């Protein structure tokens, strides 16, 4: 039995290994052809290069070519005869150095810009990788939600997926803007100071890295995430802050892109589209924020009137507390005390002061004064449901008096010992 099992495991392992090995086999001819094609493109690009940025980009592409084809060195050494792989790379690097020299470009500047371009390429590939991963995560989340399974295992995996997706989306957002920064840092001049040809070159650099496409995709993913997950106050604190950060980054980038795309109406339209999408995203975040906060009260059966902005929120919470204080005589003490306890323990201390108030205040949705107003109202409510200190002291004094009186009576009743 054990032998059969071992044989099956071995067979599966062999099948897996052979599946992997055949899946990886490429045509040597295609490898050789594709190397030659890329090489020719690089050589042609060197012939037409005019600027330090172009030379830097070519330099980075030569390094990338070397890295990509190094595993096929043995094959290329044969197919490139009488040259070989290394000789070909030396030749194209020599061609680039000659062209730089002819254009009066200093190698140091090329190296500096090439380092930035490497960053752009790395970030661009990471953005792409994260985008694919996020798409898969979102599908998994939607499938799990559609299954309606409520068991602990499903809930745990759903939470883990949501957390992973949130962190991925946030990481990708950061990478996109870091990538844009690295692109713009390659052009020393102020963007407005660039001539039309230079603007065109920056535009094609941006295009090659799908900057606007990635920004739009990021906004779409953020909105889909918002719509496909149920959020807590803590989640919203992160989401609101991410949205604000994204909007602030775009505020810096949008005008630069508008200058770059001034001659390209289609692309300029894209910049406006991002503005519109960003506004819509902001509105959805706001709506999610107020929905979640409204739900916090309804979940605990607290009849706070619905609100859609900071002022309404403050007014309606104060209104609710006022009603509770004013209608005190219409209900039993126990009922009043229970509503107060739910509000203070589950909502006020549990969520509002710990999570929501910092979020609302830091985003200037509710001011500190307004927070103070609610707090003061809660204090008034407390004194209306709890006995005041004076009453408490009077009760304590009465109890002490009664105890003393009882002791005194007892002492009086105790018979005196007989005198000897």
């Amino acid at each position: 039995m054990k032998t059969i099992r071992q044989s099956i495991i071995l067979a599966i392992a062999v099948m897996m290994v052979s599946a992997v090995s055949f899946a990886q086999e490429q045509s040597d001819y295609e490898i050789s052809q594709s190397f030659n094609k890329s090489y020719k493109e690089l050589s042609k690009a060197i012939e037409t290069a005019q600027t330090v940025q172009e030379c830097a980009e070519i330099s980075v592409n030569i390094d990338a070519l070397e890295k990509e084809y190094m595993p096929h060195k043995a094959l290329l050494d044969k197919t490139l005869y009488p040259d070989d792989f290394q000789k070909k790379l030396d030749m194209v690097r020599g061609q680039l150095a000659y062209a730089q020299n002819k254009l009066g470009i200093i190698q140091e500047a090329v190296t500096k810009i090439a380092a930035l371009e490497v960053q752009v390429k790395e970030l661009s590939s990471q953005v792409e990788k994260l985008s694919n991963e996020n798409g898969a995560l979102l599908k998994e989340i939607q499938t799990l939600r559609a299954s309606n399974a409520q068991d602990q295992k499903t809930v745990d995996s759903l939470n883990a997926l949501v957390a992973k997706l949130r962190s991925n989306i946030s990481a990708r957002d950061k990478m996109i803007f870091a990538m844009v920064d690295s692109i713009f840092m390659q052009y020393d001049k102020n963007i407005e100071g660039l001539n039309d040809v230079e603007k065109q070159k920056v535009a094609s650099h941006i295009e090659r890295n799908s900057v606007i496409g990635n920004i739009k995709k990021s906004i779409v993913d953020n909105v889909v995430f918002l719509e496909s997950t149920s959020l807590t106050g803590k989640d919203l604190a992160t989401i609101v802050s991410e949205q604000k950060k994204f909007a602030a980054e775009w505020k810096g980038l949008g005008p630069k892109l508008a200058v770059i795309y001034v001659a390209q109406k289609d692309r300029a339209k894209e910049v406006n589209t991002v503005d519109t999408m960003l506004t819509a995203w902001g509105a959805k975040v706001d709506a999610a924020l107020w929905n979640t906060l409204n739900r916090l009260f309804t979940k605990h059966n607290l009849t706070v009137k619905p609100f859609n902005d900071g002022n309404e929120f403050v007014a309606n919470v104060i209104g609710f507390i006022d009603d509770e204080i004013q209608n005190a005589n219409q209900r039993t003490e126990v009922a009043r005390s229970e509503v107060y306890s739910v509000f203070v323990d589950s909502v006020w201390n549990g969520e509002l002061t710990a999570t929501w108030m910092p979020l609302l205040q830091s985003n200037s949705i509710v001011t500190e004064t307004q927070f103070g107003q609610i707090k003061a109202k809660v204090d008034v409510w407390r004194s209306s449901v709890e006995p005041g200190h004076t009453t408490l002291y009077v009760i304590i004094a009465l109890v002490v008096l009664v105890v003393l009186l009882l002791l005194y009576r007892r002492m009086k009743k105790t018979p005196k010992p007989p005198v000897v």
Partner: protein
Amino acid sequence: MKTFFVLSCSVLSLIAFGCSSLTLSPVHYQWPVESVLSVDGKGNVEEPRNFIAFNVKPLLFEETGDSVHVSGVELRIIRDVDGYYFMTAPKFKNVYVFASDEGKLKLEKKIVVSETGMASPAFNQDKEGRPYIHLLNGKEKPILLSKSGIQQGGQK
């Protein structure tokens, strides 16, 4: 005198025998990578790198039954370590193995590799140094070929 004559004859015949049996081996004929040759209107192909040129009309007729519409066919050819030429092309159901002969290529083996014809065939040499030719066809599992037929994969 007689002894000298016999000795001389023996030495000369030994030298003559030695010359005729002189062999250099092993010889590796293999091409590192296949060639993709476009057939012209007359059915000719020319491989400039390894200097071989021939007419493929009989081969195309054998495979398709048509020796007229031959122009533009993309013939894929590779030589194995023993010097045999392996040839095929897109839509072919077979791989043809030829041996070189004086001024001609002689069919050594016709290997059936596909029932419907291959979409994008390609040849590779064996990376592990075995005397096989790998036949690739898109995402299908590679078939290992030798001059005598399929060695691994496909239908033997």
